[in-house]
């Protein structure tokens, strides 16, 4: 464990060098957020105060939080870097090093996104206050319970990404699968909470990664309940277990294939 913390620390410190680039990268975040906020303001403008049980204020905070999760954790290491490691056979060099490649990549990824995540978080909160003001009924004490949910969500998101990247062992180009995952999260998973989907689609969404990666954490911020917390944590636990198993098995199979073919 210690070495992974060390990898995390080193990459985090390195990322401080690129603060300026991160700030210039905000534009995309701003714009998406801006478009969505306009969209919701338009939709809420002349209708009743609640849609599917959400007030406009809650809805806008929901979008802000999910966007922070999406943009704050996006990173090339899990996608392009890992794919090119596999394609170029660099992964073979990493095999005889005294660490597990999977956990190495995750530590690096987390180190790289930490600064960015907090920058996005800060900016996102500012935008939220500017647009709709504070969130009614939000209690800071709950944060202690919500933070682990965010952490788990980020971890699961990382593992899911890696499951896709690892397909590169068998496939020419895993890029298109990442697009689809991206789109599922940003199009379906950040704009509306589960309750807004048609009834028949709701169970589907509840079983999808959206529930554990974006919906769960955001829902807990805008409308906390202990019952919800347990439900999300349970789902996250299951997802984490399954993704780790899948990725470990796929990695072993992939590496074996690499050995047989000699890279």
């Amino acid at each position, binding site marked *: 464990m210690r070495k992974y913390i060390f990898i995390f620390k080193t990459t985090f410190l390195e990322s*401080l*060098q690129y*603060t*300026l680039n991160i700030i210039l990268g905000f534009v995309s975040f701003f714009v998406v957020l801006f478009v969505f906020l306009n969209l919701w303001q338009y939709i809420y403008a002349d209708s009743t105060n609640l849609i599917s049980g959400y007030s406009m204020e809650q809805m806008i905070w929901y979008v802000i939080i999910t966007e922070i999760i999406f943009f704050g954790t996006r990173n090339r290491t899990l996608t392009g870097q890992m794919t090119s490691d596999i394609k170029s056979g660099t992964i073979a060099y990493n095999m005889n090093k005294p660490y597990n490649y999977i956990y190495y990549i995750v530590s690096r990824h987390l180190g790289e996104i930490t600064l960015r995540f907090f920058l996005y978080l800060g900016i996102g909160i500012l935008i939220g206050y500017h647009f709709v003001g504070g969130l009614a009924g939000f209690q800071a004490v709950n944060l202690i319970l919500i933070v682990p949910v965010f952490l788990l969500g980020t971890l699961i998101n990382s593992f899911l990404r890696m499951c896709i990247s690892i397909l590169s062992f068998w496939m020419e180009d895993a890029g298109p699968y990442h697009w689809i995952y991206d789109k599922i999260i940003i199009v379906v998973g950040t704009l509306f909470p589960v309750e807004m989907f048609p009834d028949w689609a709701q169970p589907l969404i509840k079983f999808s990664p959206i529930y554990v990666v974006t919906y769960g954490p955001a829902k807990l911020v805008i409308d906390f309940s202990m019952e919800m917390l347990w439900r999300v944590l349970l789902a996250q636990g299951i997802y984490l277990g399954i993704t780790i198993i899948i990725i470990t098995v796929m990695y072993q199979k992939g590496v074996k294939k690499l050995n047989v073919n000699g890279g």
Partner: protein
Amino acid sequence: MKAIQVKNLSKTFKVKVKEKGFRGSMSSIIKPRYKSILAVDNISFEVEQGEILAFIGPNGAGKSTTIKMLTGILYPNNGEVSVMNINPCAKRKQLAYKIGTVFGQKEQLWTHLTPYDNFKFFGAIYDLADTVIEERINELKKTFELEEFINTPVRNLSLGQRIRCEIVASLIHKPEVLFLDEPTIGLDPVVKENIRELIKKMNREYQTTVFLTSHDVGDIEKLCKRIIIVNHGRIVLDDSMEHLKYHYLNKKIVEVKMKETVDFTAEEGITVLKSKGGNLKLAIDTTKKKINDALRLIDADNMIDINISNVPLENIITEIYRENKVLL
């Protein structure tokens, strides 16, 4: 007629000085600091039509910058350039029809296509009619023996075959001047020899003027009648190969194997480089001692073997780089 005329050519670069860290990158955006580098410093020379000229110098001497100014890629700060009586920076497009370029490591061919398709593409770029292109490809194919692989995708060719095609592709429009920037870099000796043959043949068949930069002394020695050496942006030598050799080759290296040790240390004009038993290596300065006089000093009856050679060109050039001054 002169193919290339260069007069008092100069080029300065500004290079950004970047400080480290966050603060550094902040301040470099707000107020970047530059330092000036004089890449080419007041050089003048001329090249005759049909000539093969070697333009050499150590890394960063200003070779590529000069080539870029001759081909219209870069504009000079000062001085005049004319290639086939065209000013490259004023009439870049017009010049492009008359010159060909091969930049050693940068590939211009489409690697997934066959050389044949590539040649057709370059033909189209130079506005050649399809029938003309066909004829030209046939001619080049025969002259440079490409039949074997003209229909194999470039990515499946060996490095040597690929460079061959790179050069031939730049000949599709019958350029009058060809700029070759390190054409033999990274090739094995046999392939190098092949490429040199190709360049020679091209020069002979089409009277193409060749402007060649290279680190490889072999290229220069085997191809060029004239050599220009640049260092720190200046011309340190501009001379014919023959002249160069004549002036610099006033040293001969004599290696002899004698039955017993002989002592030459006292002789004027002879430096003993190595002496071990009967094996001797001597450097003879022919301005001080004629070679036949030197040979007379060696007792022929006592001699087992002898070998007389020139100082290798490579050593001469290294010497010139080091001294970095106009010697002749």
